[in-house]
């Protein structure tokens, strides 16, 4: 079973996203802040990471940067899932190595699931 790590500090978003992914038979792990996110990525080595950008402790950009620098985690695809939507933020995330950048408010759960399936075939 493929595993997905969701790094998201908003409880409702985390709950609904996890529920939807579990319904699709993915194993879902949750991290509530940047620090925990990095730690779990290194430990669990998921097939995909869904990463929010505004996070407590360490923000998403820093997490992404670290992930892409480390041997063990750099190959894990990262989909940035955030409500920040300025072109600079998008550019920065993609430049740091994110596979895709999605603005949460613009997508239904099923659209996100589709993107997830596309990324980890």
């Amino acid at each position, binding site marked *: 079973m493929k595993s997905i790590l969701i790094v998201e*500090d*908003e409880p*409702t978003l985390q709950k*609904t996203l996890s*529920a*939807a992914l579990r*319904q699709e038979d993915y194993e879902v792990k949750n991290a509530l802040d940047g620090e925990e996110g990095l730690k779990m990525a290194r430990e669990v080595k998921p097939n995909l990471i869904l990463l929010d950008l*505004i996070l407590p402790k360490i923000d998403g950009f820093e997490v992404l940067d670290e992930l892409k620098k480390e041997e063990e985690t750099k190959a894990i695809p990262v989909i940035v899932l955030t*409500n920040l939507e300025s072109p600079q933020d998008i550019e920065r995330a993609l430049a740091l190595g994110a596979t895709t950048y999605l603005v949460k*408010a613009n997508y239904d759960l099923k659209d996100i699931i589709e993107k997830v399936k596309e990324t980890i075939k």
Partner: protein
Amino acid sequence: MEVKKNLAKLHLFRECADYNLGFWECPSFIFFVMGLINIAVMVSTYLIANRFTDQPEIVAILVIAVTAIIFIISHTVTQGFDKLAQANKMKTEFVSIASHQLRTPLSAMRWTLNLLNDGRIKAEELADYLGLIKESNERMIKLVNDLLDVSRIEMGKILLNPRQTNLYVLIQKIINNFSAYAKANNIVIAIEASETLPNVFADPEKISLVVQNLIDNAIKYIKGKGEIKISLESNNKSVKAAIKDTGVGIPASQQKFIFQKFFRSDNVMKHQTIGTGLGLFIAKSVVEESGGKIWFESQEGKGTTFYFTLPIYQ
């Protein structure tokens, strides 16, 4: 003129372009012009000095005086424009922060509705999901109300309905409402006050908002385990409330901005916070309109204590 335009497009005045400030509103441009004027004045004083060569002291004093005046004027002028630029910047940031704040509960509602629509939710989970929608909805309502409060305050039309209010009872109620949230964050809230605490003359709904905001901030800025101590005391004119937390404190460099609209402490990203930076601005306006004062003491790493006073009901 072409040369001037091209010169102007260089780095020199880029910051002003960012804020959409015209040349004459741009501090760096004004400084540039002041510099040119300064040089021109220096040159003319030299020329004038040549006519008074037998009284060099006069010339020296003239030069110093004129330079000092120019310096003072340009300094005050740039200060003023700096404030303008900052205000403009905050306004734009506000719109983007507020819409960002709205996006979170909107996404939460959208996704919860997605799940409910799909029909794959078990019956026993239904209540939970409906609760999530309710929460998101309440959050958006609060945000809109805060925005309305702020705009009323700006127009000087804040709505206050003051009456005899028991501050101890009011705060106790709020503490009860916060108890689950505080417990979940490993925080203990305690209140103490003398038996004979007099009632205050204030609008209980608005003061509730103030207290809620102060307690909410205290909880949000406490990392890990902590405690919040609330104490009430009075003198013959007013009742003073102190809300003391063992949180991360406010960095000294930011303390003067704390009550400003939309201002949020730098440690926002690092400490979980959901807020628009409007709470303290509203709190200050409410307390002052009610005839009281609000202030704080804070040390980074040790904690913060917020104080406010309200007039006693006569």
